[in-house]
């Protein structure tokens, strides 16, 4: 019987969450985002400076790769963010489909370009790493390929949305695509396990002790945090623009400009 009560409580919580999402109107979100942006920029700057400091001045030279390995400090954060942003985008998309909230579609649309940028950076820095390490800019390795697919998924998402004028329809179509594309994320993540490839295996592992120098690990984590904060800040800026574009004919927008 006690379980029953807890179950009810759960329902209550999830219902109020649903209510919250439903009423998370663009109108209230717009100023909120405006107030949060500077904080995220500040956090991005702090983490970024600290991370760069460690990457260049604290982390030691690698025994095998010399100084070339320092690319890791941008490559890994960019790769992580490219996958993570996709998951967040898909989350918002699913929410939009399920609850028909207006903000979710805008969030998904705002995240896509940043995600695409991260995927592009992952590819670019990976290529610049691959040339000295493997002797080729590009190989048709499973992880590289699935990351390329991720990049194409982002582009596809943006192209699909650009091709549909009605924003409501664009949101829904984009959401379905985003959800379908989620299958790619585990493929990228586990590709190093499933195929024996050229690409590095996981160095960070929850169950095993990290196989990497402590300082390197710290540098990577700080840079990842910086990338994370950066992504939030840019996405929020973009979502504000999207809110205004889509809601330009409502009353509140006319007053929100002061």
């Amino acid at each position, binding site marked *: 019987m006690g379980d029953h009560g807890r179950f009810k409580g759960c329902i209550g919580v999830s219902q109020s969450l649903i209510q919250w999402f439903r009423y998370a109107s663009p109108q209230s979100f717009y100023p909120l985002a405006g107030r949060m942006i500077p904080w995220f920029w500040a956090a991005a700057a702090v983490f970024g400076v600290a991370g760069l400091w460690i990457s*260049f*001045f604290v982390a*030691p*030279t690698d025994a095998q790769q*010399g*100084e*070339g390995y*320092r*690319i890791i400090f*941008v*490559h890994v954060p*960019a790769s992580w963010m490219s996958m993570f942003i996709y998951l967040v985008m898909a989350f918002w998309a699913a929410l939009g489909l399920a609850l028909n909230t207006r903000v979710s579609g805008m969030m998904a649309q705002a995240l896509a*370009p*940043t995600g695409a*940028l991260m995927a*592009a*950076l992952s590819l*670019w*820095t990976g290529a*610049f*790493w691959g*040339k*000295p390490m493997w002797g080729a800019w590009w190989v048709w390795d499973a992880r590289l390929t699935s990351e390329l697919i991720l990049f194409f998924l982002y582009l596809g998402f943006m192209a699909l949305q650009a091709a549909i004028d009605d924003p409501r329809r664009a949101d829904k179509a984009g959401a379905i695509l985003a959800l379908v594309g989620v299958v790619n994320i585990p493929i990228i993540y586990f590709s190093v396990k499933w195929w024996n490839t050229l690409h590095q295996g996981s160095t960070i592992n929850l169950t095993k002790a990290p196989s990497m120098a402590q300082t390197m690990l710290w540098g990577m984590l700080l840079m990842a945090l910086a990338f994370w904060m*950066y992504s939030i*800040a*840019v996405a929020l*800026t*973009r979502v*504000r*623009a999207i809110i*205004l*574009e889509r809601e*330009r004919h409502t009353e509140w*927008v*006319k007053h929100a*400009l002061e």
Partner: protein
Amino acid sequence: MHWNSVGEFFAMGGYALYVWGSFGACVLLMVVEPLLAKRRLNEVRQSLRRERLADELDHQSGTS
């Protein structure tokens, strides 16, 4: 601190092209993207202001 000179720092142990190519691309894109986002926001605001001005003008000429 294991760099003996600025030159050594920029040489990156012979990996300058690759290291700076990567970091440079990151910095470049991560500067350009926020600027683009900001410009998009400013453009909407600008056009909204223009619209409101036009509305006001309409209103004035309508009542006078």
